C-alpha cells in the first residue's frame, strides 16, 4: 500500500516572468504534520493554492490521495480541508451556521449533520458560543471554528496556511493542541508557518522554502544536525539556509501583509 498521501513532482508556477514556484518536489506520508516555512514571497502560498485546486500550475504535477489536482480537481476537493491564511469564517453568521453550511456543501447526510456539528464544536471548545455571531468571537475562537469547518467532512489532508498568525500565545497553544490531536487521529496535516518555534513544536518534517525552491527538507532534528549543531534552534537552521533571520522578515513584511493584518484585527474588533 502506498503510504504517500500527497506527492508533488517538479511543480512550477510562473506569473509572467516571475517564477513563484520553481520545480519543487516532495511527498508527505499519511499521518504526518508537514511544515513549509520560508520568508514572504518564498512561494508557500502559491504552492498551497495549487494544492487546494485554486490555481493551476504552469508545469509539473501534484497528487493528493492519488488524484491529480488539475485533472481530478473535484475528487481532490472532497478529500482535503482548507483553512486559508485570512480569516475566512463568516462574521455575519453564528458558529453553528458556519458549520451547517459547510456540512451541506460537503454532503454530510442530514441525519448525521447535527451530531457531527455539535461534536466538532465540542472538540474545538466552542459549545458555549455555538449560537453567537462569529463577529463577536476572539481571533483564537475564529481560528478554531475555521479548523472545525475544514475537518467536518473528515478530510484525508488538512491544509493550513499560517494557522496561528496574529494569535496571542494562549490561543496559539490551543490551536496547536487541536491540530496535533487531529493528526494523532489520522488526519495528515500540511501547514505553512512563519514561526520556527511552531514548526519545531508541531511538525514531523519541515521544508524550508526560499525564492520558489526548497532549500532544505527533513525532520527538525535532521535539519539541526545538517548544520552541525544539534542544540541549534530551527531559527539558526533557517538563517543558515536562507542567509537571513526569519524574524526580521516577519517584522518588516510588505504592504500587502501589513494591510492584511490590520484588516484582520479590524474585523475582530
Amino acid at each position, binding site marked *: 500500500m502506498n503510504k504517500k498521501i500527497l506527492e508533488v513532482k517538479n511543480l512550477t508556477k510562473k506569473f509572467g516572468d516571475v517564477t513563484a514556484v520553481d520545480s519543487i518536489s516532495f511527498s508527505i506520508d499519511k499521518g504526518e504534520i508537514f511544515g513549509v516555512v520560508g520568508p514572504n514571497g518564498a512561494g508557500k502560498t502559491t504552492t498551497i493554492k495549487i494544492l487546494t485546486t485554486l490555481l493551476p500550475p504552469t508545469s509539473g504535477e501534484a497528487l493528493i490521495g492519488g488524484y491529480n489536482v488539475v485533472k481530478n480537481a473535484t475528487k481532490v476537493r472532497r478529500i482535503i480541508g482548507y483553512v486559508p491564511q485570512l480569516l475566512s469564517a463568516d462574521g455575519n453568521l453564528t458558529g453553528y451556521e458556519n458549520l451547517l453550511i*459547510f456540512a451541506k456543501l460537503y454532503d454530510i447526510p442530514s441525519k448525521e449533520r447535527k451530531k457531527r456539528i455539535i461534536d466538532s464544536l465540542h472538540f474545538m471548545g466552542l459549545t458555549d458560543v455555538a449560537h453567537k455571531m462569529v463577529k463577536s468571537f476572539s481571533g483564537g475562537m475564529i481560528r478554531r471554528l475555521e479548523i472545525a469547518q475544514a475537518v467536518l467532512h473528515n478530510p484525508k489532508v488538512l491544509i493550513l496556511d499560517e494557522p496561528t498568525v496574529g494569535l496571542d500565545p494562549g490561543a496559539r497553544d490551543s490551536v496547536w493542541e487541536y491540530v496535533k490531536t487531529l493528526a494523532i487521529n489520522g488526519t495528515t496535516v500540511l501547514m505553512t508557518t512563519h514561526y520556527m518555534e511552531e514548526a519545531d513544536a508541531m511538525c514531523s518534517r519541515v521544508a524550508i522554502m526560499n525564492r520558489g525552491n526548497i532549500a532544505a527538507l527533513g525532520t527538525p532534528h535532521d535539519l539541526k544536525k545538517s548544520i552541525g549543531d544539534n542544540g541549534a534552534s530551527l531559527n539558526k537552521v533557517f538563517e543558515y539556509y536562507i542567509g537571513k533571520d526569519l524574524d526580521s522578515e516577519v517584522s518588516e513584511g510588505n504592504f500587502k501583509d501589513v494591510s492584511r493584518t490590520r484588516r484582520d484585527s479590524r474585523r475582530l474588533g
Partner: protein
Amino acid sequence: MYQEQGVIQEDLDKVVLLDRINLIKWITNFITKTLVIAELEVRKLSHDPTELFTRALQPALWMLVFGEVFSHVRAIPTGNMTYLDFMAPGILAQSVLFVAIFYGISIIWERDLGIVHKFLASPTPRTALVLGKALSAGVRAISQAIIIYLLSLMLSVKLSWAPINLIEILFVVIISAALFSTFSLIIACIVKTRERFMGIGQVLTMPLFFASNAIYPISIMPDWLKAIAHFNPLTYEVDALRTLMIYGGTSLYGLNFDFVFLIISMIILTVIAAIVYPSIAR
C-alpha cells in the same frame, strides 16, 4: 454473432442508463448546492435586515418627488396611462437593478477576507456558487417589490391583483435581480479591486437605467439610444413588469419574448460567471 451484438447492445444500454443516472445526480447536486449558497445569504440577511429598510428610501424619493412632478408636467407621452402608473414598474425595475448591481462588491469583499477561497476549495460546482448568490439577490429584490407595492398603493397607482400576475412578477423580479447580480459578479472578477469596481458600477448603472423604458417610453428616444435599449435586459424586465403590475397594462414586445430574453441572458451570464469566478481567488 447475434449474441455478441446483443451483449454490445446491453452494454450500450447500461452506459446510457449510467449516463442518465449521472446526469440526474449531477442536476440534483447542482440544485441542492445552489440552494445552500442561497440559504447562506438569506441567513445573513435575516441576522441583519436593516439594509432592506434603508434601501426603501431611494424608490420612495423617485416616486414621491420625480413621479409626482412629472405627472403634473405631463411632459412624457405615456398613452392612456397616468405617468405614475407608467413609472411605478420602472422604479421597481430600477430598485432591483440597484440591489443587484453592487453584488460584485461583496464578492471582492469576500475575496479580501478569504471566504471565496474556502468555497472554491470545496467540491461545490462553480455554477452553483454563482447561481446561489444570484438567487439571494432575487430574495433581496422581493423585499424591494413589496416596498414599491406599498408606495404604489399610497399613490393610488392602478395595480393589478390577479394572482397569476403576482406570481409572474415574482419570477420577473427574481430572474432580473439574478441576471444583474451575475453581471456585476463578472465585472468584479475582471476588475478585482473595490475602488475600480465602485467607479465602474456607477458608470454602468446609469446607462443601463437611462437606456431603457423605465421612466420614459423608448419611442421618444433618439435612434442610437433606441438601438441600445433593444439589447438592454432592463427594457424587457420593465415591459414585463408594466404588463403584469398595472391594471390593463399591455406589452410592447409580448410577454413571452420578454421572458425568453431574460432567461437566455441569465443563462449566458451564469455560464460566463462560472468560468471567470475562480480567477478572483488567484
